[in-house]
């Protein structure tokens, strides 16, 4: 599904040049649950952003489903994103002006799903995530765990092929964190590919492979469970 070839990302300011990704080669097969680990500043999130097409590489190649993404115009990349990817962030990134229901519904508006279908799908997800009773609440009225469940629901509402999760449990207590990880594991079990950045070995072990990074490079790849 994903293959990169010497992926480089360099951040420049007037005085400093930081290499966040230094010739990274990764490949992720469909159905994998891959965790990316490493110390702060090692380039995990940058890798996630580049693979999620919300940041562009400085050089190197990135193939998504066999297509070179780096060469695509922004509009095309938006399209790929819209139909294939779902994001879960550490800080939830829910839109404050929208209710729980509306936040989850949002991606389907952009993919022009008919209203009746949208309603059905959102309700189904709210039921599954146990947030139905909060449907008309705004994000600030929810607990962290509830917010992250809404975020996960939003990420999966369009049934994406790949979910990118950036420290999804980073802002949650262990109980809520556990719940979110279980949801991700279930999604993976249903066939969704997951790429997750995490600091937590515990969380990483929900996946079947761990990529370890240091100073912008991939140092080791541990296989936890062989993907079948």
């Amino acid at each position, binding site marked *: 599904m994903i293959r990169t070839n010497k992926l480089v990302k360099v951040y420049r300011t007037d005085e400093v040049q930081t290499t966040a990704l230094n010739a990274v080669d990764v490949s992720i097969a469909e159905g994998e649950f891959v965790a990316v680990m490493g110390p702060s500043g090692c380039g995990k999130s940058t890798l996630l952003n580049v693979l999620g097409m*919300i*940041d562009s590489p400085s050089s190197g190649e990135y193939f998504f489903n066999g297509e070179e993404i780096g060469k695509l115009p922004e*509009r095309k990349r938006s399209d790929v994103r819209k*139909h294939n*990817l779902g994001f879960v962030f550490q800080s939830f*990134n829910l839109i404050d002006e*929208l209710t729980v229901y509306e936040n989850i519904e949002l*991606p389907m508006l952009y993919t022009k799903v008919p209203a009746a279908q949208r309603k059905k799908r959102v309700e189904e997800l709210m039921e599954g995530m146990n947030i139905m009773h909060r449907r008309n609440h705004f994000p600030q009225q929810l607990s962290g765990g509830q917010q992250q469940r809404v975020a996960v629901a939003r990420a999966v509402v369009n049934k994406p092929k790949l979910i990118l999760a950036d420290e999804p449990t980073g802002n949650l207590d262990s109980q809520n964190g556990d719940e979110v990880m279980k949801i991700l594991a279930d999604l993976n079990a249903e066939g969704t590919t997951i790429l997750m950045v995490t600091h937590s070995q515990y969380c990483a072990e929900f996946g079947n492979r761990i990529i370890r990074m240091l100073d912008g490079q991939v140092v080791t790849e541990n296989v936890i469970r062989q993907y079948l």
Partner: protein
Amino acid sequence: MQFKFILRSMARNKVYAGINILGLGLGIAAVLLIFQVVRYELGYNKNFSRYDRIVRVVTQSQSSEGESWNPCVPIPAMFAIPDAVPELTQVARMREFWPSISVPGAEDGTPPKKFLRKDPSVAFFTEPSFFEIFDLEWLAGDPKTALRDEGSVVIIRSEAERFFGSWQAAMNETLVLDNVARVTVRGVVEDLPPDCDLPINMLASWPTYIAQQALYYYDDNWGSCNSSNQVFGLLADASQLGAAERSLAKVGEKQYAENSSTGKADKTHRLQPMSDLHFSDKLNNSAFRTITKGRLKVLSFIALLILGMACFNFINLSTAMASQRAKEIGVRKTLGVGRGQLLRQFLGETAVVSVLSVALGVAVARLCLPLLKHISDVPVEAPFLSLPQTWAFLVFVTIAVTLLAGFYPAVVLAGFEPAGALKNSVGAVRGGHRAWVRQSLVVLQFSIAIAFIVGTIITLSQLHFIRTKDLGFDQNLIYTFYYNNDSLSVAKLNTLKNRLLQAPEVEAVSYNTDPPSSGNSWMSNFAFPSNAEDADFALQIKYADTDYPKTFGLRMAAGKWYDPSDTMKQAVVNEAFLRKMGVEKPEDAIGEDLKLGGRAGIIITGVVQDFHAFSVHQPIAPLMISTQRDYYYNAAVKVNPGDMAAAARAIESAFDEVYPEQVFEGHWYDETIARFYEDENRFANACKGFGVLAIFIACIGLFGLSSHAAARRAKEIGIRKVLGAGTAGITALLARDFIKLVLVAFVLAAPAGWYFMNRWLQDFAYRIDIQWWVFVVAGAVALVGATLVVALQTVRAALADPVESLRSE
């Protein structure tokens, strides 16, 4: 959902939404009011269906003083035009007059009913072709015959109702014009709309004019060009204007050359299209109201400036707050929303703000409609929101504001890189560039506001200068009124004067053609001394009796006033006359004679000190005052200080006693003079109103920006306070950035303000010098306003508990 989102977002940011809607709403209200003025003025005379084919014949004169224009046509030329100009399918001779009107008493002893003239209204002597040119709506009578015979008039519906109770009752009734001419109502037409430069209340037949030659100065002479004698025509086709003018050029060619001292025609006739009648700066019209298109452009420009300022607020606040929306934009982008879609979303949001602002603007404009009279002639009752044009304009304004205010912020917001947006580092990456744009817009806003303040101070100073300037005569405590100068009335003038002087309130009474300063001008060619060649410029003339200097407090520079006489034998001249003729000492002119027109041997008995015979727009011109009793029609009564209302009543009752059949209409002379400067008053009012609005809009924008800056820097303020900074220091730190911008604005606005106001002042022959303090005051007002607004926010931020702001991190 989008709409809900926008409303929720506004509810969360009430202050900023309020500033945007208030600023834009006020800006739109100003634009709407100016639209109403411009629309109203541009709509003038369009009530006539043949508007684009109607022309007025006018006269262009050449002299050593330059070119001048007059709507007059000599009576013989009037008769020559129909044959000479075949391009005109209809020609109507017209003579303006402003009669007093009464309904005669009946034999059974019913007293006559007298009616005051309604302002503005004008009567014309004219002929049936008038109705072929100007379509009027007939209620009674036949347009072909109504003005055929002597003594026939057509009146408008409201006058018919005023005179006879109903228009139906008016037909074939008798009216008396100027106490002399008995006429019969042969037709009633609907009133003309107020936006028409022919505010007709009556049309009288041409034969009536000829029958009343003496009363209405019928002068059948090529040399006599009276601005009340006019000709209107109808072109077969508007494109024939040029051809018609070429035919018209032949009219009077020979006669004007014969009358001219150079032997070459000094006059030629031109055509003024009806569409120019309201906008000419050279030619007046019967409504005595013109407005140049330049003035309308200035007004429209002011409207654009005000609206632009309000849009700048929106741009500034939206981009300043962009970082607050970074997360939302990042999320939307990760969901695959393209730049174009986001752009449309943000423009949609701006459109909602625009619609709300337009609603507020309409409400404010509706409320402020009565204020329009302070800056324009638009009547309060003129249609406004009922007009489809107004609504079309509102749609246009909504779209324009949406694009003007929304486009730049939309481009900025939609351009966020999603990864950066989610990390909220947008501000850090791009803040420098946007801050520059914001600062420029604030500078521009304050420049405009300061320029308006400079304009306001200078117009008010010039008006004060005009009002307090020694005009060279007294304008206070003088009551003036016109009387009929038919031989019957003139015979009783001495009786009237004696009756007036018996009243304890009255100090002096003078009969004359005009008060010292008036809109009228009598001019003649002249020679000084009598046996010299005619001077190459015309002399201004006033005719007045010997009580004139006492009544108006004129001061003599040398010699004495002339002796009483019915005709012109002696005269006084002014100092400007001596300067122009090279006479150094006033005494040297005494006893000299001059020739006026063809009349030689008029002895100069005195030199009167210069006074302003016109408004202070014009320099004091050479002037002669002499006697000519049969020309007088104006009476001026000087009263003692005290109860002025009682004095006016005493004057009116004396008049009524002597002339029971005549209509009395008196005015205080200082009020008449004040009306000369109506235009300047309006300009000053517009400056004041728009200046206050500009400052207000700039300040609320600054309020929003500074409150945002304070919020954004809450953590910095917290840290500084923890490290020991005081409230004053922090306030200064935050305020400094904004105050700097106002100072830059001042540097830009001061020279621009000086330039434009200096140009405006050039229109006055007598004017103030622009003082340095004007700029200091304007700058200080802007600075104090800005400082107060910014301080309000920054002091609050500086006083906040640092623990709070640090904890929020």
